[in-house]
């Protein structure tokens, strides 16, 4: 089974973020990590490969720093990596990102393509499904289980409010993976060592430029949300804060 995993580097969950001067994006001097559902997508690809043999290829689009995501993936067991490298990739909308990825892998035939179900930065939740449409492949979203069978695959989709659904579909296919589908592994020392010798192909923006167009959606302004609530901050040492809160719970919220 040959599987492509699309991964993205995003700011670390608890990293303090600051706006740039133009108010159009964040300042890039923060710590980054792999987008959480993408880590689960990689893990699922590695598990499928272990079960059925094959190859796991990882791809990311982003500046030089995004290479770290690929290195970690190779250290965990991915066989090779593709880096759409350039600062400009950060600003592409989901349609253009998907078109760039499609162009970068146009000569390859994958049985399955995985993405995380959404990214922690833009949160579009669209790139995987768009990629499926561009490649003419069937897709299923928010996947919690994958099983290969004679006809193709059977996947378990998560629906809202605790509901699920099995879907039978042919492969090749694109699946967007939900966090929690499996248990993540750590890279081993030997894996980290081997990663250095694994193939990594760089693709520049110029090489995929003809496949992409202008963004169809534009961020006019990025800003700190206006508070809709009057939040009262309770301050002081823990014992005092606890007293203050209990007073509020009792006299204002009347829940005690």
């Amino acid at each position, binding site marked *: 089974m040959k599987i492509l995993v699309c991964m993205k580097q995003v700011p670390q969950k608890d990293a303090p973020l600051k706006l740039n001067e133009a108010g159009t994006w964040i300042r890039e001097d923060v710590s980054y990590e792999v987008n959480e559902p993408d880590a689960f997508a990689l893990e699922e690809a590695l598990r499928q490969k272990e079960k059925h043999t094959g190859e796991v290829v990882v791809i990311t689009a982003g500046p030089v720093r995004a290479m770290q995501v690929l290195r970690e993936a190779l250290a965990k067991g991915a066989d090779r990596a593709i880096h759409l490298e350039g600062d400009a990739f950060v600003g592409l909308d989901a349609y253009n990102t998907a078109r760039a990825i499609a162009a970068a892998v146009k000569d390859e035939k994958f049985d399955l393509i995985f993405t995380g179900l959404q990214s922690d930065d833009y949160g579009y939740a669209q790139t995987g499904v768009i990629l499926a449409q561009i490649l003419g492949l069937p897709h299923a979203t928010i996947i919690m289980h994958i099983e290969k069978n004679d006809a193709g695959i059977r996947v378990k989709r998560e629906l809202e409010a*605790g509901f699920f659904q099995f879907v039978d579909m042919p492969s090749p296919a694109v699946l967007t993976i939900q966090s929690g589908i499996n248990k993540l592994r750590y890279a081993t020392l030997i894996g980290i060592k081997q990663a250095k010798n694994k193939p990594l192909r760089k693709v520049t923006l110029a090489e995929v430029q003809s496949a992409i167009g202008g*963004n169809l959606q534009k961020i006019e302004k990025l800003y700190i949300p206006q508070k809709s609530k009057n*939040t009262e901050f309770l301050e002081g040492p823990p014992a005092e804060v606890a*007293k203050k809160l209990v007073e509020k719970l009792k006299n204002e919220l009347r829940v005690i």
Partner: protein
Amino acid sequence: MDTVLVIVEQREGKLNRVSWETIAAGQAIAAQTGWTLEAAVVGSGVAAIASEVAAKKLAKVYDVESSKLEPYTPDAFVHALHEFLGKHPAKLVLMPHTYQVRDFVPKLATALETTAISDVIGVRYEGGKLLFTRQMFQGKFVADVSFAGSGPCFVTFQNGSFRADKVEAGTAPAPIETVNIEIPDSILRNKPQEVFKEAKQAVDLTQAEIIVSVGRGIKEQKNIDLAKQLADALGGELAASRPICDSGWLPMDRQIGSSGQTVAPKLYLALGISGAIQHIVGMKGSRSIVAINKDSEAPIFEIADFAIVGNLFDIVPPLIEEIKKAKA
């Protein structure tokens, strides 16, 4: 005149009530722009839903029908809406940001070589331009997003962004037009099975008046007990954000958020929950929200009535003691 079209969501012949919020959004946009507002119900045998929708203030309602639209598949929905929008062009197409819509809208927008602005929480019309507000970076920032193409522009709205009870009724029922779509079997690639629930839902958190909910800030499984003690002291239920249930520290049926339960208790006490969008949509309707988090910039504080910035392990033990004293 330009048209705004609302795609009403139905599942197995039942209207998904979040669609009223989308119609309210459509009515607000139509009022500001002067554009015509229409709605479409897409499915198999959904005329009754079309009639229900036609009672609202809308210029027209379409009943888009094919037996192949039940059960839902992305291939059938995209085929039907692609064809429908070819005959009935719209400038804006609005839908709720549900798991079903997320499954087909990016495909539909791509098939039409256009885009979908997803998970929108507000709209403004400024200088002849529509600005859609959406959260970014897990709610730490919001962005005003404009549409740059020739259309149609698809927009999906986050649950709770508009009020369903604000939908205006029409003075007379809107005309309904039935549109039958041919969908060849050969294009349907996915074969969905029955929808099911994993396990019997042991806990109905929607009925709880007090909920103590834990997030990543609880750090280790053994610390869950501290939150349990707090919930017990308050006489409330224990709940969690998704990562806690993914780790198996609490069962899935105690999960709050888009993939778990949606609750609106008298008190929602969030311990070490940063407030990712998927969690917030499941609890922002709570009557009062208390948040304890060490990160002063955590998005949960945006919606909290009372906020404590600090280490929950320092604050919760004296809090339990104070509650016991107050109740004694």
